[in-house]
C-alpha cells in the first residue's frame, strides 16, 4: 500500500435483510428467514478509477452500492474511504462524509421530489453541508452546475415533470455533483433511458469524471455499458463477487462459467450468431436459501460433484484477475 492507498476499500461486507420473526412465527417455532443480499464482498477502487459492477436482478449489486455509502446499514464488514472507516462513523460524521460520497439513482422519475423545483432539489446538498453563504450564491452555484450537465439555467424554477427522462437524469447528476464529491456510486444511471439518450448521459458521465477527477462505482446489468466505460469490472452472483479484474481481461477471456454464460447471452449487433452460446437453464435461486457449495452449481453447465459441497476459494488467474471457481485455471475459453 505504499504507492497509493485506494480511495475505497471494502472488506468482507455482509448485508442481510429481514430475519425478524412475527409472533405467529415464534409461536409456531418457525426459524427466522433472512435474505442474504451480500455475503462477504471485498474489493478496492483506486483514485480516478471506474469499477463496473455487473450481475442480474437480485444478485446484490444495488445493495452493494448502497451499503458502501451506508444508505443501507451493512450487517458486518468494513468500508474505508480515503483511509477513514466509514462503517465506524457517528451519524454526524457520516453526514459530513456524504459530501464526498454521492449516488446517482436509476429511476429519474422516482428519485426527484415532484413537489420541489430543480433549484431546490439540486441546491439541497448546499444547504445540508453549508456550502453557500447566501441564497444568491446557492442559486448561482446551482445555475452553474445545471449548465455544466447540459441543462438551461433558465429552467431553474421548473418542476421535475416538466423535463424528459434524459433531462431528469441530468438533474440527478447535478444534485450528486454540487457538493464536489470525490466518489460517486452510479446505480444503473442509464438503464431507464432510450438508446440515443443513454449515449448522451454516458458521454456526460465520462467527461465529468475526467474534468473533476471523480472515482466511480458503476452498477449496471448492461455489459456493453460496463465494457465501454469501466477500468475494472466485478461480476456478482447471489451476493458474492465471482470474478473481478481489468475489463478487457474479464470480458474477453472470462474464467468463471457464470461470466462466460452472461457474456454469451448478450446479443451482439456487430457479429450476430458468431458466439458460442453457453446456455444457462433455470432462474436465479432464492437468496433466502442459497445452494450449498458453489452457489452457481445449480445452473452451471460444468458443475461436478465437488461443486455441490465445496465452496470455491478465490483464485488469481492473471494480473489483478480473480475468479471464484474450482476450475478457473483450466477454463480458458477458446
Amino acid at each position, binding site marked *: 500500500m505504499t504507492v497509493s492507498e485506494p480511495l475505497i476499500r471494502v472488506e468482507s461486507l455482509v448485508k442481510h435483510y429481514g430475519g425478524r420473526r412475527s409472533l405467529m412465527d415464534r409461536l409456531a417455532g418457525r426459524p427466522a428467514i433472512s435474505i442474504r443480499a451480500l455475503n462477504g464482498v471485498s474489493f478496492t477502487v483506486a483514485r480516478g478509477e471506474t469499477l463496473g459492477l455487473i450481475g442480474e436482478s437480485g444478485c446484490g449489486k444495488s445493495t452493494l452500492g448502497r451499503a458502501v455509502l451506508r444508505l443501507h446499514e451493512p450487517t458486518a464488514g468494513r468500508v474505508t474511504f480515503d483511509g477513514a472507516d466509514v462503517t465506524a462513523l457517528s451519524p454526524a460524521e457520516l453526514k459530513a462524509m456524504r459530501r464526498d460520497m454521492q449516488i446517482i439513482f436509476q429511476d429519474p422519475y422516482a428519485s426527484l421530489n415532484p413537489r420541489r423545483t430543480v433549484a431546490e432539489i439540486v441546491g439541497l446538498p448546499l444547504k445540508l453541508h453549508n456550502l453557500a453563504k447566501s441564497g444568491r450564491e446557492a442559486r448561482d452555484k446551482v445555475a452553474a452546475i445545471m449548465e455544466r450537465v447540459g441543462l438551461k439555467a433558465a429552467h431553474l424554477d421548473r418542476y421535475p415533470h416538466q423535463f424528459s427522462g434524459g433531462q431528469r437524469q441530468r438533474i440527478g447528476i447535478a444534485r450528486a455533483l454540487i457538493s464536489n464529491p470525490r466518489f460517486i456510486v452510479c446505480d444503473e444511471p442509464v438503464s431507464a433511458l432510450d438508446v440515443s439518450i443513454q449515449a448522451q448521459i454516458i458521454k456526460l458521465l465520462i467527461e465529468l469524471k475526467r474534468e473533476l477527477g471523480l472515482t466511480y462505482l458503476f452498477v449496471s446489468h448492461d455489459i456493453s455499458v460496463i465494457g465501454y466505460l469501466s477500468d475494472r469490472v466485478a461480476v456478482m452472483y447471489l451476493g458474492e463477487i465471482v470474478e473481478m479484474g481489468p475489463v478487457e481481461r474479464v470480458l474477453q477471456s472470462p474464467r468463471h462459467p457464470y461470466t462466460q454464460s452472461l457474456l454469451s447471452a448478450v446479443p451482439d*449487433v456487430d457479429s450476430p450468431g458468431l458466439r458460442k452460446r453457453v446456455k444457462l437453464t433455470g*432462474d436465479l435461486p432464492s437468496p433466502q436459501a442459497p445452494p450449498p457449495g458453489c452457489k452457481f452449481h445449480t445452473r452451471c453447465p460444468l458443475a461436478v460433484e465437488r461443486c455441490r459441497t465445496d465452496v470455491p476459494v478465490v483464485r488469481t488467474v492473471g494480473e489483478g484477475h480473480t475468479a471464484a471457481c474450482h476450475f478457473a485455471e483450466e477454463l480458458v475459453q477458446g
Partner: protein
Amino acid sequence: MSGTMGNLLEVRGLRTVFDTRAGEVRAVDGVDLDVRPGECLGVVGESGSGKSVTFASVMGLVRSPGRIEEGTIRFEGRDLRALSPKELRRIRGRHIAMTMQDALTALNPALTIGEQILEVLYAHDETLPSVGRARTEAARKKAVEMLTLVGIPSADDRLRYYPHEFSGGMRQRIMIAIALACRPKLLIADEPTTALDVTIQAQVLELIADIRTRLGMSVVLITHDLGVVSEYCDRVMVLYAGQVVEEGPTAAVIGDPRHPYTKGLLRSIPRLSLRGQPIEPIEGQVPDLIGLPPQCRFYSRCNERIDACLQPIAMREIGAARRARCIRLEEETRP
C-alpha cells in the same frame, strides 16, 4: 413497395392520432409495412416512435382518445378495419396474437394460468370437441402441451398456479404460451424481453425463434435493442416520431445504415471494442408530436441536414429491398 401478393400482413398509410387537451398527437403518421409468411420482422424505435401504437392499431386495440384516422390494414388480404367487432375477434387471438411487454400486468392476477390459457382455447379453437367432458379434457391437454412447449416444467401441475407464483421469465413464457395456444399465423411480440435479465432474455428469444421455425409462423419483434434485431430478425424497420425512416434486410441496414437516425442509433451503442474512443450520441431529443411542421422529423437532431430537408420527405427506394426517408439519398450515384 413491390409485390403486394403473398404478404401475411400489409399496412398502408396508417395514421393513428390521440386527441389531447394540448392538441392532436400524431403518434403514427403514414406507416406502411409488410410482414411476409414465416419471416421475423424487427421493429425498432425509441419511446414515442409509434412502434407500439402501430401494432395496437393492427390489433384493433386503440381506444379513445386515440383513433385510427386513415389507412388500410390487410391480413391475408382481408381489410381488418372493415370487419365487425365479432369478425375481428375471430381473427385476433386465433390468427394474430400479441404478447405485451409487462407480463405481470398483462396476465390476470385473479385467475390461474390454466384458466387463462383455457379461455383462449374455448374462444377460438375449432378443433376442440363441441361439448362435454371431451371438450374440457382436450382443451386441458392442449394447455399442458403449450406450457410444455414454452419450457414450463411439470406443466400439468402448474395449471393451478397464479401468475405471481412465477418468476419474470416464466411469466413471459406463459404469455407466449397463451398467445400461441391457437397456433396463430402471426405473433406480435411487444418488447418481450425488456424487463428480463440477459440470460433469461436469451432463453425467451431462442424459444420464440424455435417455435417460429416449428410452427412456420411470422413474428414481429418490437424492440429498442439493435443487438436483438441483429441476432433474431430477417428484416428490420426503424421508426422515428411516428414514421418509418428506414427499412430493409437486417444485415444490410445494420452493416450499411442509410438514414442519419439509424446511423446515429448504431453509433450510440456502447461497445467494449470502442473503449477510449468518444461515444457520439444523437444530440437533442424526440420532437413533440403535436403540431409538427411539414419537414423531415429528424431535422433538428440531424448532423447531415441541408435546407432541402425543410419540406415533407417521402420514402426513397434503395435498390429492390430497401427504403429510407432521407432526401440526401438523391445525391448518391445509383448503379
